[in-house]
C-alpha cells in the first residue's frame, strides 16, 4: 500500500474544530456534519477539518495526545520498553503530519511536538528493523506486532512478507530425490505433481506489493 492511501484512511479520524461560520450542516453519504455554529466546537473528520482550515474557516483543537507532556511520557515509555507501547492513535503519524502542516498556529509548541513525534517514530522504526532482522536471521516462528500502527507495518512491506515467502519456498521445495518407485504409474503420478502449478507454496496472505 502507498503511504498516500494510508493517509486517506487516517483522514477519517474525528477531530474537534471551532468553526468561524454558521451552517445548518452538510449531508454526506458517510453521515451528517454539523450543524456549525461560530465558536462552538464540533467534531468533524480530519479531511474536513484540514479543508476548512485551509479556507481559514475554523480553528482546529489538537487531539489530547498532541501535547508535549503526554508525548514526552510516551517517548520515555517507548525508550524503556523492549516491545512497542500503545500509541494514542492508530494513525498518529498521519494526524500529526496533516495537523502540523496546515494548522501549526493552533497547536501549542508545534515545533517541539513535530520533533518529538519524529523521535518517537524513529525509535519505533529502529525497533521494527532490529526485530525484523532477528525474525529472519534466527528463523523464529512468530513476531509480536501488537500496538504497531498501520503506517509502521506498511514500512516493512513488501520486503518482509516477500522474504518470508521465499524462505518458506526454499524450505518447502523437495529436499531429496523423490523415492524411486518400482512401478511406472506411480512414477508418472509423482512427475505430474512436480510440474503442476497450483501447488503454489506461497502463503495466501501478504502477497500483494
Amino acid at each position, binding site marked *: 500500500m*502507498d*503511504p*498516500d*492511501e494510508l*493517509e*486517506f484512511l487516517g483522514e477519517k479520524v474525528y477531530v474537534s474544530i471551532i468553526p468561524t461560520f454558521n451552517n445548518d450542516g452538510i449531508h454526506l453519504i458517510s453521515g451528517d456534519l454539523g450543524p456549525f455554529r461560530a465558536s462552538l466546537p464540533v467534531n468533524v473528520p480530519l479531511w474536513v477539518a484540514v479543508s476548512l482550515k485551509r479556507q481559514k474557516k475554523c480553528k482546529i483543537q489538537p487531539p489530547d495526545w498532541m501535547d508535549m507532556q503526554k508525548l514526552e511520557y510516551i517517548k520515555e515509555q517507548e525508550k524503556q520498553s523492549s516491545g512497542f507501547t500503545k500509541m494514542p492513535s492508530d494513525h498518529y503519524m498521519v494526524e500529526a*503530519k*496533516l495537523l502540523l*502542516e496546515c494548522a501549526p498556529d493552533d497547536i501549542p509548541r508545534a515545533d517541539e511536538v513535530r520533533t518529538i513525534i519524529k523521535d518517537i517514530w524513529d525509535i519505533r522504526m529502529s525497533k521494527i*528493523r532490529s526485530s*525484523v*532482522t532477528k525474525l*529472519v*536471521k534466527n*528463523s523464529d516462528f512468530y513476531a509480536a506486532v501488537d500496538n504497531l500502527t498501520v503506517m509502521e507495518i*506498511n*514500512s516493512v*512491506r*513488501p*520486503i518482509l512478507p*516477500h*522474504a518470508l*515467502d*521465499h*524462505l518458506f*519456498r*526454499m*524450505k518447502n*521445495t*523437495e*529436499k*531429496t*530425490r*523423490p523415492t*524411486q518407485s*518400482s512401478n511406472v504409474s506411480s*512414477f508418472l503420478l509423482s*512427475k505430474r505433481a*512436480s*510440474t*503442476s*502449478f497450483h*501447488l*503454489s*507454496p*506461497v502463503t495466501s496472505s501478504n*502477497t*500483494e*506489493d
Partner: protein
Amino acid sequence: MSLRVSYSPNYYSLDDILATQERVPCKVALTIQKMGHLNPSVAERDLQPGTSLELPLWLVSELSQSRAPLVNPELPKIYREAYREILKADACAVDLHKFSLFFYELGSHIKRFDKKQDVHETLLHTFRTRFRQLMDLADNSMSDPTVQQTLDILERKLFNDAYKARMKLNTWLKDSNTTIEAANMVINHKKRKRMNIEDLL
C-alpha cells in the same frame, strides 16, 4: 508482480525457465545411442558411459529421475564444499551475482541431487545472513546503481520492491502534496478488458 506468478512452481514463471537453463555437470551412466555429438572431444557415434557432460538442468532432472537413470548429476561447483565454506564464513561479503544469476532458484532445484542436504542448509543460511544487508541497502541507498551488483536475481527483485516502497514512504514523510493515483491493478485491468473485446471482434 506478485510472488504467486513469478517463481516456481509456476509453469509460466520466466525466472524458473531461465534458472533451469543453467548447465549442470553430470556423468553418463548408460550408453546413449547416436548422441555422440554431445561430446565434441570424441568422434564416436554413441555416448559412452562415464563421459562427463554439462547439460541444462531441465534435461538433467528428467534424465536422472527415471528408474534406470541415463545420467548421474553432480553438483555445480558453486554449490560444492569449497564454495559452501565461503558462504558459511561470511555470506554478506560474497558477490552472489558472480556465483550465479539464479543462485537461490537454481539451488532449490539442485538440492535434489545433494543427498546430505548441505545445499539446502546453505541456501537458507545465505538468505538469512544476507537479508539484513539487503534491507539496509534498500533503506539507505540513494539511487546508486552499483549497490545491486552483488545481488542475485531474486535478491534484486526484493531490493527493487523494498526500495520503491521506501522511496514512497520517504516522499510522504517529506511532503504531502501528492495526489492519489489509481492502483496499477486497476489500470491494467481496464486495458486487458479492452484488448479482450478487440480480440473477440
